[in-house]
């Protein structure tokens, strides 16, 4: 049986662990608020951008002059998976769930005989994917120095993607990120960004007929890259909120577990202390009787 000193030390150490996880939970809660606000603030722009691009794309789609970002490169042989994870761990299944989604997708594509290339954003995803898919990694974006993701970060990522696309390195690009549903639920989401996906709706009828200045194609040419950047930006923001949400619930669990453990250890401590006392008493009494 563990002696009293050991038990006392263990209780003290679990208590300090609980303090740390409790603090991390509160920090995550504060950061989550900010991340959610940022995601909220970015929504109007992303929404409008998507509306206009979809409207334009629907009218240009099918024409031969459609930009490559919309029409694609005419094949779907090489896929680029942009896997967006966090820079730090201790956030429950956040990183693993994205990596898992990406890994499943990569497996599928490889089975179909396609070429897979992976661009990682965030250290954790890279570390996990390096184990079995290291041959497919083509690049990495480090955001560990970034405190708050800004549009420039998204622009940096999309620039890498465009450079690869212009060089003919891939045909289809998909981003993987966690969509923020609630604090306890984040959904790993794949989203195709190149070629742009145009939802099949008959908006053309109801929409007002716009004049375009300059031409539709020229505007589309200008807007598509922005639209891709905006989608990446939205994904980054969703990811940031999801990460904090996941960390918050993970730390909440950890705090609760530590509490349970302290209770158990305390009971054990008290019992063994009592046992020691009883033993001493018996020794004294039986010693006295023997006289």
């Amino acid at each position, binding site marked *: 049986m563990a002696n009293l000193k050991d038990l006392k030390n263990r209780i003290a150490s679990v208590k300090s662990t609980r303090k740390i996880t409790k603090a991390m939970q509160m920090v995550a809660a504060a950061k989550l608020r900010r991340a959610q606000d940022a995601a909220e603030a970015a929504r109007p722009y992303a929404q409008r951008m998507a509306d206009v691009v979809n409207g*334009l794309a629907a009218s240009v789609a099918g024409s031969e002059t459609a930009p490559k970002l919309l029409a694609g490169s005419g094949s779907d042989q090489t896929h680029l998976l942009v896997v967006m994870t966090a820079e730090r761990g201790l956030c429950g299944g956040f990183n693993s769930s994205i990596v898992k989604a990406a890994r499943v997708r990569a497996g599928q594509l490889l089975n179909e005989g396609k070429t897979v290339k992976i661009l990682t954003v965030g250290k954790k995803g890279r570390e996990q994917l390096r184990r079995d898919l290291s041959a497919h990694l083509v690049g990495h974006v480090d955001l560990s120095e970034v405190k708050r993701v800004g549009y420039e970060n998204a622009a940096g990522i999309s620039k890498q993607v465009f450079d690869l696309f212009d060089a003919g390195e891939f045909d289809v690009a998909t981003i993987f990120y966690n969509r923020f549903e609630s604090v306890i639920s984040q959904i790993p989401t794949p989203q195709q960004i190149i070629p742009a996906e145009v939802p099949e709706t008959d908006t053309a009828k109801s929409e007002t007929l716009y004049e375009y200045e300059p031409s539709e194609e020229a505007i589309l040419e200008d807007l598509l890259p922005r639209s891709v950047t905006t989608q990446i930006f939205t994904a980054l923001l969703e990811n940031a909120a999801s990460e904090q949400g996941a960390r918050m619930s993970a730390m909440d669990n950890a705090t609760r577990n530590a509490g349970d453990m302290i209770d158990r250890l305390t009971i054990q401590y008290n019992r063994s202390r009592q046992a020691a006392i009883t033993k001493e008493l018996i020794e004294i009494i039986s010693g006295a009787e023997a006289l």
Partner: protein
Amino acid sequence: MADMMQFDLVSPERKLTSVQAYSVQIPAAEGDLTAMPDHAPLITTLRPGVLVVNGADGETRFAVTGGFAEITPSATSVLAERAYPMGQEGRDALQALLDETRAKAASAEGNDRDALNKTADDLAQTISTMN
């Protein structure tokens, strides 16, 4: 109200303003244009420049770069890649962007260089009006 329309200015990171306006002067890619209520539906791209909003409480100016404007008879929205209210902060940010664009222009060729140089000129002009 028929003599006013809804005006929104949004950048990727936030919504800068959402007000009722009499007219909005927009630095469009092919020249400035002023949108007023009942304007024909129009979508145009932007060049770096100054956006002038004429609203109920007078004139407000913003510096914008890149993006597009969507004009309908009842509302105008401007989606700018970067947008700053007049002031030192915006000036500094634009100046940084100008330096960056100049540097890029110096190493680019042909059409790209012309486009970048034009952007740089537009930027320089915008900055000079921001005093």
